């Protein structure tokens, strides 16, 4: 978990705290969900929607595919360690939203901990330290033991159906 002084590496893309979630938007008219947020015009070609609710996306999903970065990515990527330490990446399918969302994989996990279809959960962890020495955080996908992505008991996903904590976002 990120420490108390940590701030997200990008504004308004995810919540922090005990149950962090990605923040997207949902077209009020057709229900299409967008991540990153779309707040101007609905991109469903059959929809004229211009109003969107902010929604927290499901915190759990299933791995669509995965890889890792064995070599340090070029700037603007900021490596956290010197020498560089590889990290894993996963594309995760969120059933309720019908989205596949990219993310790094949580610290301590690599490609050997992943398979297509395996359940993962969203966490927030440090991404890099900025010029002022402050920790900047990012969402990551953490592998879950067993079949944790279901909709049964213990699934704390908020789903696309519930407006986010910050409420409705009006049209521009």
């Amino acid at each position: 978990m990120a420490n108390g002084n940590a701030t997200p590496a990008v504004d308004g893309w995810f919540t922090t705290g005990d149950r962090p979630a990605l923040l997207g938007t949902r077209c009020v008219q057709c229900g299409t969900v967008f991540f990153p947020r779309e707040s101007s015009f609905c991109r469903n070609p059959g929809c004229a929607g211009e109003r969107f609710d902010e929604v927290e996306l499901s915190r759990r999903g299933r791995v669509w595919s995965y890889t890792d970065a064995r070599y340090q990515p070029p700037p603007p990527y900021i490596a956290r360690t010197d020498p560089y330490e590889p990290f894993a990446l996963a594309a995760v399918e969120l059933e309720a939203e019908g989205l596949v969302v990219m993310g790094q994989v949580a610290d301590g996990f690599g490609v050997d901990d992943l398979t297509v279809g395996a359940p993962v959960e969203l966490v927030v962890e440090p991404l890099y330290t900025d010029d002022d020495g402050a920790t900047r955080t990012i969402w990551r996908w953490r592998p879950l033991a067993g079949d944790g992505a279901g909709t049964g008991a213990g699934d704390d996903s908020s789903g696309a159906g519930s407006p986010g904590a910050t409420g409705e976002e009006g049209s521009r």
Partner: protein
Amino acid sequence: MSNDVALVGVGMHPWGKWGRPFQSYGVHAARAALADAGLDWSDVQLVVGGETVRNGYAGYVAGATFAQALGWNGARVATAYAACATGAQALDTARARILAGMCDVALVVGADTTPKGFLAPNAGERYDDPDWLRFRLLGMTNPAYFALYARRRMDLYGATAADFARVKVKNARHGLANPYARYRKEVALDEVMASPVVADPLHLLDICATSDGGAAVVLTSSEFARSRGLPALRLRAVATVAPTFPNTVIEMPNFATDSTAAVAPADLTFRDSIAHAAYEEAGLGPEDVSLAEVYDLSTALELDWYENIGLCKPGEAEQLVRAGDTTVGGRVPVNPSGGLACFGEAVPAQALAQVCEVAWQLRGVAEGRQVEGAQAGITANQGLFGHGSSVIVSV
């Protein structure tokens, strides 16, 4: 009514790391293509340039730059940008002007000089640019996207690292005799698998390099080719379709797919739809093509293309490469030029280079890599920002 135009000339500058300005490769290729066509620069009424690529976005002016470097001849100019599919969009622009009766002779040129290593985004703080953000927030390079597709083949279809390596071995062999290829050296299966992993499961030798290069194509109206007695191939299709919402495959440089919450996905994926549109336009099907030039940004991606262009059903591509079906001499050779594996990518030139190879194959002059009796060829290509292209040429 036929939408054919005549493909009368092709030319290339060899791929490499030459370190010269892009227009020098373009002019070399253009002169070669005009000589190949038996036409003079003064015959050209339209020059379409494939825009150079800088940090994922359109770079230097191209059409006018080539026209000036060739010596202003009063021709009209146009410039096209579609990332990796740039060359095909330039071709499409030329074809459209010819079909509209607005000109008879068009020269299409693409050329670039490309930096070493990972293709990187623009400098500065660009929080509104997805191509910048994917590096800052995810460290997501182009090979990482290719690796996602490769891993799915493994987990869903049982592909192996050796299957991917087979594609490289095949393409390396194909490119041996190609005078325009940058890498002309046999590669062994073990060499590919022993090369360092860049983005699991892809090894360094599974991923294409970046190169300098230039390619050019001369198109004319069918009537003009006939009246001048030019030996012509038929440009049957140039598909430049964008995806259909919702696009459910994650693509460079995106963080997520479109949502299927409100609209169910189409029957065809975006990559499937690219070749499908070309076949429909040409009135041909996968069974009619003698060869294919597909965008092997990675070895595994070449396998995806086998399925996307209809050479086999999903999950069967590994069988094709194992059986040698896609090797020159096999059922339907893929990347007889050696592909990106032997060229490395010179972005705005690459889709035109694919067309050049198809032309040489159809004329029966692809020495050392000739597909015997080739009657029709298809190219397929996809790049950043939802750009795809597929071109069909026949005798």
